[in-house]
């Protein structure tokens, strides 16, 4: 029985009291197991704040096509946080809940386990947005620049987050063993960070590699964030790439997710 598809159709009948109780309960559990979130959030947040505070890093650099080191790295770090949360924290929780029989147990109640999935998505997304705000606001307060096109920055971020959370859900759908899911999540994380330019900045990539990077969700999102930081709008190509990744991963996750 492919449960999630049926559930999506029945969404209007959702019991909101139960959904709120579930969200509260999951938030409490997350607060009691803060390690995952802290370790995912602390590195990118700390790095972007430190980078933003060093004047030399804020100066334009020739090797980066006239951009400053901070301007190149802040978007990478913002995306680093959501990727880590979506590809590590999310599949970890969901596959463990499946292994423990929590999802199957919920199926026996009038409330669908999809409510639990949504609660997890909301929480992970909220933590990611919190990290993003810290990474934008704190460096700006210590002297780095604000994104010059905040609306475009936000749109790009939301589409990128959608693609990453969809990918994380897909990992949780395809792998039933929590350890295998975590391993595959890490692998995907490093691949995506490579295309985002964590080790080899996009302006320095050979053009063929940059074209490949353009159609990956991380490459498209990071370039979109860089463009909007500088006051431009993200290119249509990058927005389309993110939307396609979002739709495809979400649809596949809904199709393949099983409760047990």
């Amino acid at each position, binding site marked *: 029985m492919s449960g999630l598809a049926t559930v999506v159709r029945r969404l209007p009948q959702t019991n909101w009291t139960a959904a709120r109780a579930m969200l509260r*309960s999951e938030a409490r559990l997350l607060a*009691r197991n803060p390690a995952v979130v802290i370790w995912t959030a602390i590195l990118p947040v700390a790095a972007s704040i430190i980078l933003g505070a060093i004047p030399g890093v804020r100066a334009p650099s020739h090797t980066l096509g006239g951009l400053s080191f901070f301007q190149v790295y802040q978007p990478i770090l913002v995306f680093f946080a959501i990727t880590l949360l979506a590809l590590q924290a999310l599949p970890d929780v969901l596959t463990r809940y499946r292994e423990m029989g929590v999802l199957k*147990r919920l199926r026996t109640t009038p409330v669908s386990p999809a409510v639990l999935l949504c609660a997890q998505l909301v929480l992970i997304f909220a933590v990611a947005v919190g990290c993003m705000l810290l990474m934008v606001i704190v460096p700006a307060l210590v002297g780095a620049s604000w994104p010059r096109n905040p609306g475009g920055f936000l749109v790009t971020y939301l589409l990128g987050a959608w693609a990453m959370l969809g990918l994380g859900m897909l990992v949780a759908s395809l792998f039933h063993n929590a350890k295998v899911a975590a391993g595959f999540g890490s692998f995907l994380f490093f691949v995506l960070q490579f295309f985002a330019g964590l080790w080899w900045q996009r302006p320095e990539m050979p053009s063929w590699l940059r074209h490949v990077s353009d159609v990956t969700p991380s490459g498209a999102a990071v370039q979109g964030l860089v463009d909007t930081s500088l006051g431009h709008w993200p290119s249509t190509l990058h927005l389309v790439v993110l939307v396609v990744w979002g739709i495809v991963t979400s649809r596949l996750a809904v199709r393949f997710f099983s409760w047990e």
Partner: protein
Amino acid sequence: MPVIEVADLRKVYGERTVVDGVSFSVEQGEIFGVLGPNGAGKTTMVECIGGLRRRDGGSIRVAGMDPADEGVAFRSALGIQLQESRLPDKMSVEEALNLYASFYPEPHDPNVLLERLGLVEQRRTYFAKLSGGQKQRLSVALALIGNPRVAILDELTTGLDPVARREVWDLLEDLRGTGVTLLLVSHFMEEAERLCDRVIVIDHGRIIAADTPEGLAANVAADQRMSFSPSTSFDLGILEALPDVHGVTAAGERVTVTGTDNVASAVIIALHERGISVGRLRVDQPSLDDAFVALTREDVGARTEGTVAR
């Protein structure tokens, strides 16, 4: 009117028929046992009844509803305790009950259930810190929190130590007469003997017996069994000659005799006449355990013969 009606239920996995034409009905308020050896198809059957698996044939009505429709009304009328289902480690007893209570239109008061299940002291204890018996009692509580008409409890006491097992049994005995119908899945005969009003025995996906636990035990042509330590050693042939005796074995000091209902008095009299007294005497009635072993063995026998005949 029965609250659970199952007719000709069938479930097939590939080539294997796991549930093969099972029919039974359960009245409101009954404690009904589904017994059978491991792998007999019990869990698959109750998961069909609980709406967790789609059946391949037959019909099921629970409280007038078909589980295949998976409606909210169906899930509100039914509570299920699943085999091997855990809660998040750091969820407390009270939090779990409150959370599950929020799922149902007319739940029980979590505080009343805590009291009834003897979990008041553990209300703030995390799931991971509960003992096995406490976890199972919480699991029963979660199956009952929605105020269901029917609760399915699957292998509730498997893996519990004897003390914890008795705790759970006491709890279920307390539920008798509250109007809730319990469908109890077990491979544990003592459990069924103590709790169930009626039982069915399932093997290879089919019902091989249906009766009260006492009726089932009585219908098995099992011998009475006595064992004792004689005051001095003697020739076992003395006992074998008695008409009531079917078999005699000796192991160390201890002599075990099987035979008819009169075997105990016949043996004691025969030995007394020879000046031998009978120490540490033990006489066992055929129990549900014996019935179960006899039934499942007959079933295997019938199958083997069937194969040969073909």
